[in-house]
């Protein structure tokens, strides 16, 4: 029996779970007049609802990933041999991330790519926060309505331009003979052009800019609902501006900060275009490795395993950070 068929058991399990939930719902309600799911919707309609939700949960959310999970536990085989005797469950794809299958030495290239991706994503997140917090604070609390509208427009309109065009124009700007280097040399700050692309400045700038809005809107939302009087009360009690932010604004905006940082971190760790166009020649972004496994080497099992390693690591990292800063997951999606 092919272990891949295990995937097709899942639909039955999911439907059964929804069915059970619908039946148990009325027993859980404390209100005696509460009607159960089927009483409310009728048996036919209730069944249709359950099937629709199950379809959505399965085909759009669960199954694609599940198929990849299953794939990642298999050896790489030509299509003809799939389901044959050589198609067994194995951890070798995951192992290959740590040690090279060819000579059993440490897989330094991929490990380095992995840690670089995580570290660079953290750096991008921090940089992004540093840029967005003052801006969001200004928009939410300090600026006049007209100015805030103008800033919003200035932030949003550039996103109408597609990502690749944006990345390339940034590349032109930062190139050795690009505008910025010409300016620097003309001003006499440097003699030789700075290679912004090789030292990954381009990568950081590009990624930060790509996810600016993702950071700024949660921050803006969180700070905007803060009562101005709280800020003034702190000021009146003698707090200098940075203590007001430390003690009043940031604790209040913490869920928004967590939500923005989580999204920016996840998106940069998983981004493909910006690292490809703006990274230096020696920069190996982890998603590029995954991409190559899928589309260059046609090694789907290993690509899937790598993708899941990245996903698991990112989730673990975010959970750790939320724990550290005492934010619950629920708060970040408020």
């Amino acid at each position, binding site marked *: 029996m092919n272990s891949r068929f295990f995937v097709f058991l899942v639909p039955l399990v999911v439907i059964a779970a929804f069915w059970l939930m619908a039946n148990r719902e009325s027993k859980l309600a404390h209100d005696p007049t509460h009607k159960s799911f089927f009483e409310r919707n009728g048996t036919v309609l209730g069944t249709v609802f359950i099937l629709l939700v199950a379809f959505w949960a399965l085909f759009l959310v669960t199954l694609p990933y599940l198929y990849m999970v299953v794939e990642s536990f298999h050896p790489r085989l030509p299509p003809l041999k799939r389901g044959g005797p050589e198609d067994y469950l194995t951890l070798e794809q995951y192992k290959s991330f740590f040690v090279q299958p060819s000579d059993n030495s440490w897989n330094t290239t991929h490990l380095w790519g992995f840690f670089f991706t995580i570290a660079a994503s953290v750096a991008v997140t921090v940089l992004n926060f540093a840029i967005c917090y003052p801006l969001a604070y200004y928009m939410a609390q300090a600026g006049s309505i007209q100015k805030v509208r103008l800033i919003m427009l200035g932030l949003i309109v550039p996103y109408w331009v597609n990502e690749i065009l944006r990345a390339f124009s940034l590349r032109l700007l930062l190139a050795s003979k690009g505008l910025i280097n010409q300016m620097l040399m003309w001003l006499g700050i440097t003699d030789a052009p700075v290679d912004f692309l090789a030292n990954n400045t381009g990568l950081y700038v590009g990624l930060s800019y790509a996810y600016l809005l993702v950071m700024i809107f949660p921050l803006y939302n969180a700070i905007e609902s803060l009562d101005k*009087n709280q800020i003034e*009360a*702190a*000021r*009146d*009690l003698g707090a200098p501006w940075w203590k007001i932010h430390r003690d009043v604004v940031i*604790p*209040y905006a913490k869920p928004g900060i967590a939500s923005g940082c989580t999204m920016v971190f996840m998106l940069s760790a998983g981004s493909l275009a910006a690292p490809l166009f703006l990274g230096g020649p020696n920069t190996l972004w982890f998603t590029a490795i995954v991409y190559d496994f899928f589309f260059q080497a046609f090694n789907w099992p290993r690509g899937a395993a790598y993708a899941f390693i990245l996903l698991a690591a990112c989730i673990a990292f975010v959970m750790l950070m939320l724990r550290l800063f005492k934010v619950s997951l629920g708060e970040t999606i408020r």
Partner: protein
Amino acid sequence: MSAGVELDHVTVRFGQFTAVDNANLDIKSGEFFSFLGPSGCGKTTILRTVSGFLDPSEGKVKIGGQDMAGIGPNQRPTALIFQNLALFPLMTVAENITYGLRVRGVDKTARMKKADELLHLIALPGQGKKLVGELSGGQKQRVAIARALAVRPKVLLLDEPLSALDLKLRQHMRTELRSIQRQVGITFIYITHDQGEALTMSDRVAVMSDGVIEQVGDGKAVYDRPETAFVASFVGENNPFMGKVSKATKDGVAVDTEFGPLRGGNPKGLKVGDRAILFVRPELFKLGKGSAGAALSSRVKSVAFEGNITNLFLNGAAKKDIALSIGRHGSADIPGQGEKATINYDPSYAVALPEGKMARE
């Protein structure tokens, strides 16, 4: 330590709009001083100017004799209690109270000691560990006061701090505030649009209207000797009678009203022919004929028995009622609805003032 506050010809403008117009005041150290006025008259603006959140467009604010120009709110010896309290919801009661000390670098043990002390003062001992959200309205109120007092201000500024409370609690907090003020002995500047609050608590009251300070004085002066038509109509109930001055001497005038000539005091030196409003308070009226020029008659529109007093409303001029309240001793022969009633008053308590803006009903 306490300090006086001096407003030296202070004007505050927002663009073209003048929110405070040439306020000139000397609030003494240790005084309980109130600003009283209708909504939007510029009370909060004055308070924010004193606390440093706004700069006067003209004039100077002095605290303890020192000009406050260029000194920010976090460096002034004032503490402000906000209209909505603005307690920090993510901090405990004790953390709220000692926040001002924390930003000044006071160490934790000293802070906790101060918190205990203040929690005793506001009658919430042992409640320091609660979150602000777990307190009742009145308790929050007191925590806000403690938080402001913790930084040992020389002047405490209170912006309608009782407006969110229900009537009973409000009356209770009035006495409490007054007693806290006596205990700490610092200047309180209190803002309210509730005249009962202003009159019962304050040493002196400034009555404001549209950014202008109309009159400053103790409660009795403001109530008994109003200087403008606005003050007379805003502070307490009053019956206005409009007309022209027909006779004027140093200590009294007669105003020709729809009910004939009526007499009253002349504090503003009205002359014959001036347009004037004569104000007679409801409790000044008595039933009966009385003396000439201090009596009128009209038909009774309605009678409202309120226990200790009975309120009568007679048909007045221009569809406005004349209100009078009769105490228990005079209540034997109160006329019924629709009957003709003759009433009189003691002219030495009535005042005639130049015609001017009146408070909206």
